[in-house]
């Protein structure tokens, strides 16, 4: 991976929740946004953005409109800062990630 640390730091800054909050939909509630370098299926450098939703998120809150406006807020913020790496965005709750980790450990 060749994504510069400088770029990653900039991404973290751009996606700071305090700055981004106004652009995010009211629901689902975003607790934090994590970014890391990523190489896509075609071998291109990109970003993996994990949007951590609150554990009480419901399926009803994940409407097309909410999901799209959440992702658009991220795309727009990165574009505004001329960050050209494509952000692949994943949604999760902490409880879900913990559960997935447990499942993985059980399988090992």
């Amino acid at each position, binding site marked *: 991976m060749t994504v510069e640390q400088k770029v990653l730091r900039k991404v973290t800054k751009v996606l700071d929740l305090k700055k981004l909050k106004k652009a995010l939909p009211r629901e689902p509630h975003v607790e934090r946004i994590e970014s890391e370098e990523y190489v896509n*299926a075609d071998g291109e450098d990109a970003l993996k953005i994990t949007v951590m939703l609150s554990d009480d998120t419901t399926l009803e809150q994940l409407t*097309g409109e909410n999901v*799209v406006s959440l992702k*658009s807020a991220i795309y727009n913020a990165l574009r505004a800062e001329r960050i050209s790496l494509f952000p692949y965005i994943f*949604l999760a709750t902490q409880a879900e990630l913990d559960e*997935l980790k447990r499942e993985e450990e059980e399988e090992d």
Partner: protein
Amino acid sequence: MHEDLLDQAAFLAAKDPKRPKQANLRRAVSSAYYALFHYLIDQACRELLGTQNDKRVYRHVLARAFDHGCMKEACVAFRDVSLPKKMAGALPSAFAIPPELQFVAETFVQAQEKRHIADYDLSTRFARWDVAGFIHEVERAIATFESVTNVNSRQFFLVCLLTWRTLKR
């Protein structure tokens, strides 16, 4: 077809509410991607060959010529509003890529990556919320495409999905 695939994706994503099986989430992601893939191909074939029922067989034959990689490359260019200079210069000055098309193109790029992970990368596990959100996003992209009123941009985008690798030269 695309509606059935979306129904299938939603059904699989909602199974086992307490502990969803990764196999179901992976198939849900794949089905949602293929819903968008086949929807766009169908729209392109209708533009190229006509919508009449007696053209259906021809549309199905033409549909086989579409390629995942070529479609993604076209979508990246439309998403970034970065058509090759030669192509952009040859288009009418009024030509523009509406934000709705950019969104559809962006969703396709995201969807293809997720489908690749779902089908080939066993090291990544899917979270139900991510899959549920993704299915809604694909539904939204299809609805958005239907709302594109700029006929020239819409037609050109669809033709590019098939011909991008030749056109971009």
